[in-house]
């Protein structure tokens, strides 16, 4: 093998490739150096093979990557956690003891409470009695007032039901002052009064007139000095005139269609009716009712 030929080929192979032109030059050089064509071809292929190997080498020498491992975490809290669990268990134990004690106390107080409730239930008769007495008192009060005023209240709802357990002087006074009084019944009374007195007037005055027109004093007429049914003529005349006035007064009231009393009269009458006894009684009834009711509220209270 000619060293000169090898060096020549190596120079041409510096770029890693052999062109056709270069190949021709190599064969010419070999011919000049007296190297056969076949031998030259073997040398060329051998050198090209070496170059090829060199170019492939870097691919195999890719540097290996080195993994970067993270430090493992220190996981050692189990003991601490177990201690905490122990602590919580003690807390639970204490709480459980307290709970039992509280439960027992609650049971005791429930027993006391139940006996008190039983006692409260015995007051059911008092409740009935209170209602009846209260209604009776209110009815009496109303009746007395109506008698005093000579009229009746026209009620939408019963007075005693309205004020049961909550009566007081002011509210009752306001009630009667704003109430509708029975004017119809009063008008009937007034009419009767009008007809009666007007009738009496006509009878008496007619008698005097007849007596004066048809009888002389000598005949024992009115004008005479003699008495008629024990009355003198002028006394009968006065009675006749009074009857006329009363009759006309009743007529006038019928026409006006008004009561004989006003709100002040109602207040005055109630002031009299609401004496200390009545006032005390109503106050007592109200308080009793409140207490009974409050007792009821307590009864219905539940504890879970």
């Amino acid at each position: 093998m000619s060293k000169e030929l090898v060096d020549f080929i190596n120079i041409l192979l510096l770029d890693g490739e052999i062109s056709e032109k270069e190949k021709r030059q190599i064969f010419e050089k070999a011919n000049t150096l007296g190297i056969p064509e076949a031998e030259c071809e073997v040398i060329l292929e051998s050198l090209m093979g070496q170059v090829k190997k060199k170019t492939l080498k870097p691919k195999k020498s890719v540097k290996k990557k080195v993994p970067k491992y993270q430090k493992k975490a220190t996981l050692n809290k189990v003991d601490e956690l177990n201690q905490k669990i122990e602590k919580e268990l003690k807390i639970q134990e204490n709480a459980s003891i307290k709970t039992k004690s509280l439960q027992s106390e609650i049971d005791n107080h429930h027993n006391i409470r139940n006996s008190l409730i039983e006692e409260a239930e015995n007051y059911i008769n008092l409740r009935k009695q209170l209602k009846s007495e209260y209604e009776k008192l209110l009815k009496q009060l109303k009746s007395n007032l109506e008698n005093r005023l000579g009229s009746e209240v026209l009620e939408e709802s019963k007075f005693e039901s309205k004020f049961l357990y909550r009566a007081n002087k002011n509210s009752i006074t306001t009630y009667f002052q704003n109430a509708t009084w029975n004017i119809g019944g009063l008008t009937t009374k007034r009419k009767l009064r009008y007809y009666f007195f007007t009738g009496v007037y006509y009878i008496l005055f007619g008698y005097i007139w007849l007596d004066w027109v048809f009888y002389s004093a000598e005949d024992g007429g009115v004008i005479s000095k003699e008495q008629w049914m024990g009355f003198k003529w002028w006394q009968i005349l006065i009675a006749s005139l009074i009857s006329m006035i009363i009759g006309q007064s009743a007529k006038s009231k019928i026409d006006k269609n008004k009561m004989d009393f006003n709100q002040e009269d109602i207040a005055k009458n109630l002031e009299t009716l609401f004496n200390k006894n009545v006032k005390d009684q109503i106050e007592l009834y109200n308080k009793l009712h409140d207490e009974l009711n409050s007792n009821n509220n307590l009864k219905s209270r539940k504890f879970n």
Partner: protein
Amino acid sequence: MSNTIQSQQLEELKKLNQDLNIENKTLNKLYQNLKAEVSVISKSEDKIKDYKKSIELENKLKEYPSSAQGSVFFQNAMVSKYEAFGKEHLEKMARFFTFIEQLEDEYHNLYNSATTIYFEDPYDNSIENLFKMHDQLIESYKLMLLLILEVDRDQLLYHKIFNQIEDQGIFLSANEKLALDQLAAISNKLSGVINGLNVLISETQKSNEILGKSLESISSLRSDIDWVSSDISSLGYEISDMQSEIWGLTKDK
């Protein structure tokens, strides 16, 4: 009913009501105290439950590796097979590597967070997310391993796997993934790919039993890993080396 009697009755009633009021107040107070004690027990039970959960988590977290370096391991393992992949597939594999590296970074963050927080709040999201991320990593590693193993062996299987991964968008570029805002969504699809592959593996199990087994066992981190050495040794590694290099575990574990 006379006034005198009623007055007495009123007094009796008042006393009875007072007594009942006192009993009610006492009972109220007692019930409040009882509720407070019951609440103490209930809170304490909750705390114990949390502490037990923390202990359970600590034991579980101890089994979890602090590192996930599968991307490095598989890159090294792949060097000798660059030519087998070809330029186009190699480019896509690079994207798969980027995707796995993102999962690994997330895993490291979650590991740090979970191993700190489990003591104070065992229900913190990072803990469950860590476990989930670990599963996703294993699934990614399975796919990567399959691709590397099969690229110069069973070409048909290799392409089936490759196509299935491609269909799930795992080979999308970072920008494409960002545009889809789908890193998490793609991670979730991994299990879909694995399920699909399991069917694939099951079908080819008779001819490729070894590969089927390796898929089953990679999820285990314990010493009973049943990797088939002939597969892994083709990459120039022992099973223990591989496990050790991926998770940073000691070989004797």
